[in-house]
């Protein structure tokens, strides 16, 4: 299989200037982006405002006397190091789930088999129920498997999700079947095809899923809370929730906590988004 490259017609120079339309669109997007990100920007500035400024009126975006007091509090009062390790462990375990889901997505996308539609509907069905309903039966199952108070027990209920399998299936459906057939004719085994052809071609959606899985693992709150019998297994989200007092909470502290939680996700996103939008040339086989 050869990838066809974009042929530049002789005599036509590729234009170097960006078109006016692009500039206009860029400007509009920038305005929209700023508006969209504004609450986030507010959050970051609020995290360094002393408490007196957080109740000030008229409201001001920038702090007069920024303080890192609340970040300090977070690190001191939160058992940050331990919670961080737990959170990362869960993220890593979730990445394994990613593989399982990609395989399932591929199975549903590219094969015809008995019960396919019914099973796929089951996949969708798991998205349709509120999590509180699943909480108790799931807990009882994990309790029966003696997985309470373990990291595996925490990661297991959310290891696979209907949402991600559905997403994988949609994307993998667009992979040309001819490529797969050709590989089969060449004698390649099914799993080999999966790892050698399907996964590489799914890079954009894999990148998306890595980011999503990271977010879910990083923010994991409910299961770590319920499955853990002691604080040693708490994740960052649970630790942050502990700082919420019963009635009066300190807004700056909460903003600091939220900023802390968001920054790593943002970094992961910035790193992986390259792969999301990495154009790959789908050859002329189409």
């Amino acid at each position, binding site marked *: 299989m050869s990838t066809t490259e974009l042929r530049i017609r002789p005599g036509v120079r590729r234009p170097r200037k960006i078109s006016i339309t692009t500039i206009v669109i860029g400007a509009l997007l920038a305005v929209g982006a700023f508006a969209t990100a504004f609450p986030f920007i507010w959050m970051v500035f609020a995290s360094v405002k002393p408490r007196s400024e957080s109740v000030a009126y008229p409201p001001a975006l920038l702090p007069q006397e920024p303080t890192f007091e609340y970040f300090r509090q977070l690190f001191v009062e939160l058992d940050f190091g331990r919670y961080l390790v737990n959170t990362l462990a869960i993220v890593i375990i979730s990445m*394994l789930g990613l593989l399982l889901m990609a395989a399932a997505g591929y199975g549903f996308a590219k094969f015809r088999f008995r019960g396919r539609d019914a099973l796929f509907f089951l996949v969708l069905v798991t998205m349709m129920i509120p999590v509180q309903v699943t909480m108790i039966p799931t*807990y009882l199952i994990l309790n029966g498997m003696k997985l309470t108070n373990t990291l595996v027990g925490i990661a297991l209920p959310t290891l696979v999700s209907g949402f991600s399998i559905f997403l994988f299936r949609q994307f993998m459906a667009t992979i040309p079947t001819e490529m797969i057939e050709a590989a089969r004719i060449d004698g390649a085994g099914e799993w080999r095809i999966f790892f050698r052809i399907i996964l590489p071609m799914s890079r954009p959606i894999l990148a998306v899923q890595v980011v999503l899985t990271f977010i879910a693992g990083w923010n994991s709150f409910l299961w770590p809370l319920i499955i853990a019998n002691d604080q040693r*297994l708490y994740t960052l989200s649970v630790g942050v929730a502990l700082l919420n007092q019963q009635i*009066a909470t300190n807004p700056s502290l909460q903003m600091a906590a939220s900023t802390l939680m968001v920054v790593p996700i943002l970094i992961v996103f910035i790193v992986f988004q390259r792969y999301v939008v990495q154009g790959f040339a789908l050859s002329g086989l189409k």
Partner: protein
Amino acid sequence: MKRNRLAAVSAVAIAGIALAGCSTGGADDPAASGSLTVWVMGDSSEHFDELIAPFEESSGIDVETVAIPWDSIDQKFTTAVASGNGPDILQIGISKLRTFADSGALLSLDDATLADYPNLASSNFIDGVAGDATAIGGEVVSIPWVSDTRVLFTRTDILAENGIDAPPATWDELRADAKTLAGRGDGQYGYYIPQWDSALPVVMTWDQGGEVVNGDGFIDFDTPEFDKAVDLYTGLYADGSVPTNSDFDQTQGFISGVAPMLVSGPYLAAAIADAAPELDGKWSVSVLPEAADNTSLLAGSNLGVWGATKNKDGALQLLDFVSDPANQVSWFGIDGQLPTAKAALADETLTADPLVAVYSEQLANSRILPLVPNWDGETGKALLDALNAIVLTGADRDQTLQALIDATSSTSVN
């Protein structure tokens, strides 16, 4: 490329699982005599460890404190009940007491059980939560621990500017003062009624000398005192003295002077001191205004023992320890929560602080909300919905109140 990355990810995942298997070292062995697990709410677990360090030393019992976020106690408790695996001791917010008691998961703490522990005698605690006050169906399943109440906050500077030289001593005065203060201008109010606060109308009823629970233990809003309370509540709105939007922020309202009088708890005092130190000396805290009485709300947390605990004696010993007035005073110093032991509330180190002196005084005349199933979600909510319908949407008062009475009259504390 992809393959290597895949292999790397798998290797790391496997390592992660292996690590996970090791890290908690064989899960929890059921509390061998000599250890206790305690559930403490919010971020107080470190402070709690500090408090009980002497206990651990003297008794040889190893105490493990687990912090539970306030908003998640329901989930945690539910799964514990479902599996039967709970802590040994747990902190129970009074609003949750009925629900937890009804689950049957708490140990009954009758006189016989408590006999050996002098600090746990109900006479040691303030009346509002002692003994039978927090019994469910006649059964005591918890011991008082920390308390909270509601007092009157006033911006003395703003009141003075408007010719009022002392916080109102009666509810009628409060209503009149609020009207005066609201007259300062557009967007200025005299008082603030939180639309989510189901305790306030009950407190108002109590202060008119009435009850919300009748002699048989049923909720009864069909009383003249409740009617007078409703007059007061709706009157404040009718006078234009209170804001009508649901998202009014009381801290900002008080600090900015938009709402110079409020009924709120010690947490507000801490917030004001923290956020507006420049207001020092310009605001004060006083006991509630009275009509027939000035009873206030008593909130806070008790401590309960898990029914299936394997270390009952140890648990009771720990309860006895934290109920010792000296230790309750310590706890106040470490964590800032008010005691429930009478001797502790009278302690000089506490009453030296003028604010605490007021809280203490008010606590001696405070009561808990009726221990009906799900006050927050049902009775309290129905009460608020009715009142808010009257003051915000102009619903017919008599009809609405009658509907409220009908809807709640079969709810019982038994």
